[in-house]
């Protein structure tokens, strides 16, 4: 910070959202991969105004976490990246009960967090509580697991329509999608 701007209570320059796209591009270039990843990018964004109160809406949880798979290696807490735990099709689970879901197959920050508490990435118990407290009309009967695939085509043409079909079957009004 220049001396002229001292004394205004500004935050440190690095205390801003991490520029992930830049970091990841430089990272893979340094590892030797010459073709930068092409990120999904749109100028038009769909928008559906809420047409009924939240307290009357049915809300579903969408996660990229994977159900724990015995025999598929270390899945945490504190696990290194584990591609063997990946999944490649949409799955669903009963929203009324708890589930053991893990994120060892995803690129989380393994330096500063350990994935020790699934409530930080899978707020199903919190959503259930919101349903019981009347903050939402009700929780959808199922939550849904969404695969993370490097192929945009697979995500857009296969996984997204499958996810939509399951949400429509459950007559969902709104969805919370938690990224990792």
């Amino acid at each position, binding site marked *: 910070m220049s001396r002229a701007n001292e004394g205004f209570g500004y*935050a*440190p320059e*690095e205390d801003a959202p*991490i520029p*992930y*796209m830049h970091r990841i591009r*430089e*990272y893979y270039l*340094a*590892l030797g991969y010459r073709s930068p990843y092409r*990120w*999904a*990018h*749109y*100028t*038009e*964004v*769909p*928008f*559906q105004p*809420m047409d009924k109160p*939240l307290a009357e809406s049915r*809300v579903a949880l*969408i996660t*990229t976490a994977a159900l724990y798979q015995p025999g598929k290696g270390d899945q945490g807490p504190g696990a290194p*990246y*584990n*591609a*063997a735990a990946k999944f*490649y099709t949409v799955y669903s689970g009963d929203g009324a009960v708890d589930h053991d879901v893990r994120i060892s197959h*995803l*690129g*989380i920050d393994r*330096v*500063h*967090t350990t994935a*020790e*508490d699934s*409530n*930080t990435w899978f*707020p199903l118990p*919190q*959503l259930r509580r*919101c349903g019981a407290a009347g903050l*939402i009309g009700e929780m959808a009967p199922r939550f849904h697991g*969404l695969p*993370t695939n490097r192929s*945009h085509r697979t*995500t857009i043409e296969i996984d997204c329509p499958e996810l*939509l079909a399951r949400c*429509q079957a459950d007559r*969902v*009004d*709104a*969805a*919370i*999608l*938690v*990224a*990792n």
Partner: protein
Amino acid sequence: MCHQTVSLAARHLEQNGIITVVMGCAKDIVEYCGVPRFLFSDFPLGNAAGRPRDPQSQRFTLELALRLLGAAPAPRTTVQSPLRWSDDPSWKLDYSNIERLPPDEIRWRRQEFDRQKEIAREVRDQIASP
């Protein structure tokens, strides 16, 4: 990748009449894709729903996301959670920061990336031809 996948799914659901909110920690990836509503937590990846072992922060974060469903006036509405991961922001300098990795570590990571990619390919192949 995960933030991108979730963003694409939010767009698809919204286009088909289901209103959505994304909870995430990678602001640039979600906003570059473009989503209707986004609750951004400036936390390390893996904590989009609150701080570990902190039910109060988890409760606050989910309720903020729910409020955003009805409160957003237009697409691309981003709300940043007021919660802080740490008073010391230096954690933000570490993730995939090539300037902080020694050459040996970079070589090892290249080998490890290729190894994990091969494992992922085998998992995919097993699913395709059980």
